[in-house]
């Protein structure tokens, strides 16, 4: 057989490669466009169509204002705990060796895998009437369920994996040599953490915090169950959206939805922006 006869007559290898790559890029854009950008635009259009009046109505509504404040309050509280606890758990998981570590490592992801509704129900079982922890708090006259503490609690539980999943692999990859070097140079363990470990993980940590904040702001299922949804008391922004649609106040729902989405988007883009600027300034 001659060499020319063996050759495929249709497309050259280069053309085929370009076609495959083009197809994959188109699929990526299609996915991001259809599933991420389009719904976002939909919400934006719906929220902006009725004009400023809808926004005025929402911000004049004391329940809406309370819902925003409550979401902010819960998010900040959850954030403090997820940050500190997230870093501690990440350090333990990436540095220490102990029996049962694999199990603990898997359990950390559990909140991502379990429906938030189940998390809410579990909290009800623990803190509700007849629950394990209920008598202790009841004796001290502390209201957990159908009050802000339980809402903070489930929010922490649901958002903490985002910090750990960003930080733990980073710590693993960094290794301990820089920390050991700092120790041999006379740094205490605290100095080593704040001057070596933390600066090295700061971008991953910030990104994890941003993701976990976004998750905390958007939380519905678990909060819905433990809060009792008392308007003006235990109603967060997401619960407000649910109620708005229930009561036919679609415009208010869209407005609140858009503001929540904007907060998350600004946060993620902001962190990406600062990270890039930092990296450029460092290795240019």
């Amino acid at each position, binding site marked *: 057989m001659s060499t020319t006869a063996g050759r495929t007559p249709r497309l050259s290898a280069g053309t085929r490669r370009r076609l495959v790559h083009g197809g994959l890029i188109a699929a990526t854009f299609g996915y991001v466009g259809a599933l991420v950008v389009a719904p976002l635009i939909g919400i934006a259009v719906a929220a902006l169509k009725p004009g400023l009046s809808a926004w005025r109505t929402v911000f004049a509504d004391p329940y809406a204002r309370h819902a925003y404040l409550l979401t902010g309050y819960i998010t900040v509280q959850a954030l403090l705990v997820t940050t500190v606890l997230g870093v501690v758990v990440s350090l333990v998981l990436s540095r220490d060796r102990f029996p049962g570590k694999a199990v603990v490592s898997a359990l950390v992801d559990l909140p991502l895998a379990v429906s938030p509704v189940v998390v809410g129900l579990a909290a009800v079982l623990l803190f509700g009437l007849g629950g394990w922890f209920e008598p202790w708090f009841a004796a001290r006259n502390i209201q957990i369920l159908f009050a802000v503490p339980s809402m903070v609690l489930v929010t922490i539980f649901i958002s903490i994996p985002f910090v750990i999943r960003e930080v733990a692999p980073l710590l693993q990859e960094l290794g301990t*040599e*820089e920390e*050991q*070097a700092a120790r*041999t*140079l006379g*740094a205490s363990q605290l100095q080593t953490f704040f001057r070596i470990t933390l600066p090295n993980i700061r971008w991953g940590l910030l990104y994890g915090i941003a993701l976990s904040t976004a998750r905390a702001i958007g939380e519905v299922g678990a909060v819905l169950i433990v809060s009792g949804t008392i308007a003006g008391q235990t109603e967060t922004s997401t619960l407000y959206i649910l109620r708005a649609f229930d009561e036919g106040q679609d415009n208010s729902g869209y407005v609140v939805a858009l503001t929540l989405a904007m907060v998350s988007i600004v946060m993620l883009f902001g962190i990406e922006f600062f990270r890039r600027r930092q990296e450029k300034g460092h*290795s240019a």
Partner: protein
Amino acid sequence: MSEGIVVQGLWKRFGSFDAVKDVGFEAEDGKITALLGPSGSGKSTVLRMIAGLERPDAGRIWVGGEEQTGKSVQERRFGFVFQHYALFRHMTVSRNVAFGLSVRKEPKAAQRSRVNELLELVGLAPFASRYPDQLSGGQRQRVALARALAPQPRLLLLDEPFGALDARVRQELRRWLDDLHRELGVTSLLVTHDQDEALELANEVVVMHQGRVEQIGTADEIYNQPVTPFVAGFVGAANIINGYVSAGRIRVADGVPADAGHLPEGEKAQAYVRSHDIRLTTAVGNGAVSADVERVTNMGWTSKIHLRLPDGQVLIAQLPNEEVDWIRPGARVYAGLRDAKIFSADSTEDAATDSRPAEVSEAAG
């Protein structure tokens, strides 16, 4: 007690593996001492225990006459240089070097002048505001050294400091470290698997193998009077020839190439021979063994000659070209040994199961 380093009965176990077994040695004040051994010999673990980065399971450590065993890394404050530099990647070169001073809250002006002095010393003053990832490997290791020296440690611990560098840079840095040490005179402990490095830099060498000390001595003693087969093999004897003791010499095939008077008659023995200690001639004599030339490889100014002894053993000689330009593959030559270390085969690892067969001693007689 010595002003340098004294280590006694050091043990370290990781899980069920004894990494360091009863290691003891002394290292002289103001000198470079090398811990030499293959990877897994426990040398780095010993160094890390001296630094306080690992806790020994048993044993004691003194430095400068002061016991260190119970002290933390931070309290010991020995300079430590890591194989992979371990520079703080988020800090500039000058902040890296200043770190040891700044954690001790030294005045800013004093920090600055000490950093400048050290960067000058390691020849990196123009790089003060660079980040580690903007430096070459050799430059990074010099920064690491400056950083370790900044707080004026009384002991400098170097863990394979040139191990991650390519051969040319390694040579360069070795010479540079030698000069630097002459200038500063700080007591140093150098962990290395490179015998040339140990022999060139160290005043004294501690050879380690499988968690134990095999031999302690000067470079000359280690090289010329290895006390164990391991040391002989590790410091350059590439050939191991099996034979037995016959009339005070080692008998190998049709020759008796080296003296073995220190071993009992008939003992199975092994000769450890460096490839440049082989002498090739055309004539029988001096107990030389006959050998067939299988292959000749030109290595530049030397040639490697692969020889097959009559009993099937292989011997590789490496000699200057002008000494061996007459040798062709297929030729019959006679191999004499200029120098060889003879050990009883029972004392070498790979002959552990052999006992002395009676017929060998008869054949020897």
